[in-house]
């Protein structure tokens, strides 16, 4: 059985950068509250606690998420495991795929990373934080497998039709 693959180490900094955007917003709100409501003690304590939690989120969470993130693509399926507090595992049979897309957000582009989004009739599954060339190789190999499955089904349908039309 194929082994699970880990992400490139650049994924840690990419996750950290995304978390920092939230931190910036939180800091702006904190500064405004400190300027206008610094006498409200419980609010200041709550703000302090939130900032401390956010620091943990930015520093420690990307490392845990990186260590936990694994993916595997076999002949038949895509298997992705990821998460921090809640861990999820998603498994998609390749024959269920309708669409494959490579996407790059602004932060992904900064670290030359990309994500592969596969779409089924029931929803999407994403493999994130891949190097661009790895994402393209994965997308290409999935497209080849989908075409092979589609050709195989077409041959099987034609065989079935011939059996129906053949005189008894």
């Amino acid at each position: 059985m194929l082994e699970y693959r880990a992400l490139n180490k650049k994924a840690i900094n990419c996750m950290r950068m995304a978390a920092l955007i939230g931190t910036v917003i939180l800091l702006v709100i904190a500064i405004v509250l400190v300027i206008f409501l610094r006498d409200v003690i419980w609010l200041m304590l709550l703000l302090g606690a939130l900032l401390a939690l956010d620091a943990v989120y930015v520093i420690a969470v990307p490392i845990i998420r990186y260590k936990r993130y694994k993916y595997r693509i076999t002949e038949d399926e895509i298997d992705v495991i990821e998460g921090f507090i809640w861990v999820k595992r998603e498994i998609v049979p390749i024959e269920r795929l309708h669409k494959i897309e490579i996407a790059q957000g602004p932060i992904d582009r900064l670290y030359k990373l990309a994500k592969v989004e596969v779409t089924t009739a029931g929803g999407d599954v994403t493999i994130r934080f891949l190097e661009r060339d790895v994402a393209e190789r994965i997308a290409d190999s999935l497209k080849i497998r989908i075409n092979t499955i589609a050709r195989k089904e077409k041959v099987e349908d034609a065989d079935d039709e011939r059996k129906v039309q053949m005189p008894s």
Partner: protein
Amino acid sequence: MTREKFRCHPSIIVENLGAAFIAFALISINSFNEFLSVFSEIGSIPSKGVIITFVIVLTLMGGIIFWQYRVWYKTLISITDGTIEIERNTINRKHKSYGIKNISNVNLEQNILEQILRTYKIKIDTDSLSTSNETDIKIVLGKDQALEFKAEIMRLVAINKNIVDDEEAEMQFASTKDYDISYSVKDIVMHSFYELPLSSILSVLILVGIALVFFGAVDTDDNVMDIVVKSFGGMLALFIALTTSAARGVLSFLRFFNFRAKRFKNKLIISQGLLKKRTYEIPIDRINAIKIIEPAISRIFNKQSIELVNVGAGDEKEEGAFLLLSKSKKEIDSFMETLLPEFVTSTDENLEGQPKEARMIVIIHQLVYVIPLTVALMASILLREQINIAVYIPVIVYTVLMLFLLISALIKFKTAGLNVGNDYIAIASGTYKKTTKLIKYDKIQYLRADQSPLARLKKLQRYRLFILANQGNNINETGLFYKDKFQDIYERM
């Protein structure tokens, strides 16, 4: 049927104008006296405000009517061998092509206006996740043209699927006057009763309680006016309780009136409705799952009903997806053998309950509701200026709510069940309303397993099965079960 382009029946203009006309009527009624005085004072100069309002309203109405007429005139429909084409050549030009091969449902509907004008609304749905919450195509045609159009679409669907040839496809859609299952008026009334949600019953009981409190405050020594004033609150509460219950019952009755179902070769035909008649034709291979529904009252009386999960039936709020209305389990099993033998509904004995390690986790997850309730209780005590007997009221309410949450968590734990069968998977869930879903493995698009930190300690997981369906039915979640089920489910997909 001709392959030339055609338009909808012009009555669609009136249907689309419906809301605008109601608004106009309301404005007119409000301003009626003023309008009347304008026309009765011949020779006198009416106020500018009245005239301006009148002109604006008329202009707006004229504009809306003209626009709707233009949309109707410029919208053309045609059928090819592989697609349904809808062209709209107004300011926003659109040309939509729907693949015949992807059509999952072709349904007929008649509201009151359509019944008077002898037209039908044809609703066509495709196997598309992006439009699974709405109907893809709606066309209004005269009765004969509608039936011809529907027959042509169904013929092309059959040909595109390569299942049957032309001649047999036409014979497939024979008369559907004889239904396999039909429900009497009594059955439908009882179904409306069994279907009542617990929240509705509790609301009525609370309102009746409030009414009794108000009536209890009335003193027989009071004068008539005082009695009326004091009992007004009670009368209002009773009025709300009775009208909401009656309205729910009446709507349910109108929706399910003359409910009938039939199995015809490889599809189900369901007909229902009094003021709005609907006929659904659902291909068997487009049924992605079925749901065995048991609301609280049904569970007490040992009744069940069956709903279909299919892209097309039940994707608009007022539509139904019911295959069978409330009956005993034995009758449901028997009806299902006639209508849909592909699914066996007597699943209770095969359902595996959650492991006992999951019980504490389910209770702890309910604690998320305890925190805000506890904060509310503490605030209500601490903010009091003086502690007196009235402080016990929030404490009593809190205690009752805690007990309710605990009992609900235990019922939820007991209700959850899972059976990884050979042909389909059965998932039971719910608290007071139990829903058991039967999903065929080839309809599952992908599988997900979720673990919270507590569940990870006990090697338990919650599974989510994603299927093609409208919102609310596309994600099917199980309770907490051991990790080995994951491979079991996946191997069968």
